[in-house]
């Protein structure tokens, strides 16, 4: 009996120690963030080390964020409208790129003739960063949703194709042999062996695409647009409203995080056999 108690208390002590350890690091993290905000506040509102047009205080940023939820000044729309426009445009271009790109990559890897025809085009397109497409799209398609969607399409299309392509190419030969021994047809091999094997890679491509799409969108909105988060921070710069720039940057970051979280959730749901 006494022995059992000794053992229980040992477990209890070890759990307590673990908890304490975890709490310690959470505390350090909170303290670090708070210290940062305090120093920021100290340098701006209290010591006034930087002019407020260049470096607003954290409180000011927060107030601007709340105000921007319903105010349209200085750029003509409220924050939710800008977010809506940006997310809509980005998703439109991204979905087109992913829906066309991933299957094309799969087909390229599966059919040699198609591979031979399309691959050289890709080798040329691949190293061109999506941002470099902005000027040509603006000239050809004009300022508006179409040109932005086209830029985002390029940003998401290329990584989708490349990842789907190398995913299929990585299919384990042994799996194909196993499939053949069981008498699978060529299309069965593709749908039941090659594509499931390539799924993690295809998803990697989609994740890379979404990140690239979002960045390309912000760039396109910075250069030529009349709404969206990129436009909002560009206008805020021209009128010297750093508080709105920071609100915009944080929103861009938050949405980017939400996008990746959503894709990670989908990946866990649909990609079987990994982790």
């Amino acid at each position, binding site marked *: 009996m006494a022995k059992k108690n000794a*053992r229980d208390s*040992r*477990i209890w002590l070890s*759990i307590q120690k673990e908890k304490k350890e975890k709490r310690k690091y959470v505390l350090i993290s909170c303290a670090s963030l708070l210290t940062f905000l305090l120093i920021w506040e100290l340098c701006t509102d209290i010591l006034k080390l930087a002019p407020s047009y260049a470096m607003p205080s954290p409180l000011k940023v927060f107030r601007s964020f709340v105000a921007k939820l319903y105010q349209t000044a200085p750029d003509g729309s409220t924050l939710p409208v800008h977010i809506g426009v940006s997310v809509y445009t980005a998703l439109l271009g991204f979905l087109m790129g992913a829906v066309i790109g991933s299957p094309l990559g799969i087909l390229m890897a599966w059919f040699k003739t198609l591979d031979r025809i399309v691959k050289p085009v890709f080798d040329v397109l691949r190293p061109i960063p999506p941002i470099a497409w902005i000027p040509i799209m603006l000239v050809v398609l004009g300022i508006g949703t179409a040109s932005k969607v086209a830029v985002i399409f390029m940003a998401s299309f290329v990584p989708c194709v490349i990842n789907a392509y190398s995913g299929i190419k990585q299919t384990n030969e042994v799996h194909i042999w196993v499939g053949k021994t069981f008498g699978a047809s060529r299309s069965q091999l593709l749908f039941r062996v090659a594509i499931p094997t390539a799924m993690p890679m295809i998803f990697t491509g989609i994740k890379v695409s979404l990140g690239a799409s979002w960045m390309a969108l912000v760039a396109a909105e910075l250069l030529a647009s009349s709404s969206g988060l990129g436009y909002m921070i560009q206008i805020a710069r021209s009128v010297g409203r750093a508080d709105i720039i920071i609100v915009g940057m944080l929103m861009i970051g938050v949405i980017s995080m939400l996008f990746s979280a959503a894709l990670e959730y989908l990946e866990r749901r649909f990609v079987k056999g990994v982790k």
Partner: protein
Amino acid sequence: MENRIVVKCKNVGKTFIQGKEENEVLKGVNLAIKEEEFVVLFGLAETGKTTLLNLIAGLEPVTEGTIEVNDEIVDGPKPNRGMVYQTTSLFPWLTVLGNVEFGPAVQGIKKTERRKKAQYYIDLVGLSGFEKTYPIKLSGGMKQRVGIARAYCNEPKVILMDEPFGHLDAQTRYLMEEEIERICAKEKRTVIFVTNNIEEAVYLADRILVLSDKPSHIVKEYQIDLPRPRNITAKEFLRLRKEITDFVERSAGEVDG
């Protein structure tokens, strides 16, 4: 001097705690190992063989009891113990030579001196000519040879071998057992060798310690006095092998029944 005790375990126990699960792996382990003795720790899968080795190495703390190596209580890894691992633990970014001279190098031994030493042990394990090769280019058996040379080159008091041939194919395994026999005949050291292969145990050991199921402790001890190098088909060898096999099967059966 021959009979000085180098490794001493007094009532050693080890319990792993993970979340709310408590896993008592070792309990009441007592052993004493003499200088230049080749001791085999024998146990079936899932017994605490590797854990006991890690405790002696100082890679993990004991929960109960004490371990002394060279009259010093173990409280962390120290170069007076050398380890040969089950899977390769070679530094992949170093060549064979770099791996073997790692110990002397971190202890600040001069380049010419440590090169000479490393070369001696590389030759001893039969890897002459592979000094500049990276581990990735070596076969499983060759990697284990490097591991052995690396442990020996540091000149530890005790060498711990954790199923070093467990992942090798049968043919290579026989060959490596003969190699260990040859190396140990040439470079006498205190060795603690972990295995779950009875033939290997009888072939190599001066003394076999049999570990029980979890929580493991030593249930039986066999002194092997056969002349070396041993013949695995000799009558006496086979008799010992059978005796140990019977004992292990009987004690495993007791738990099942």
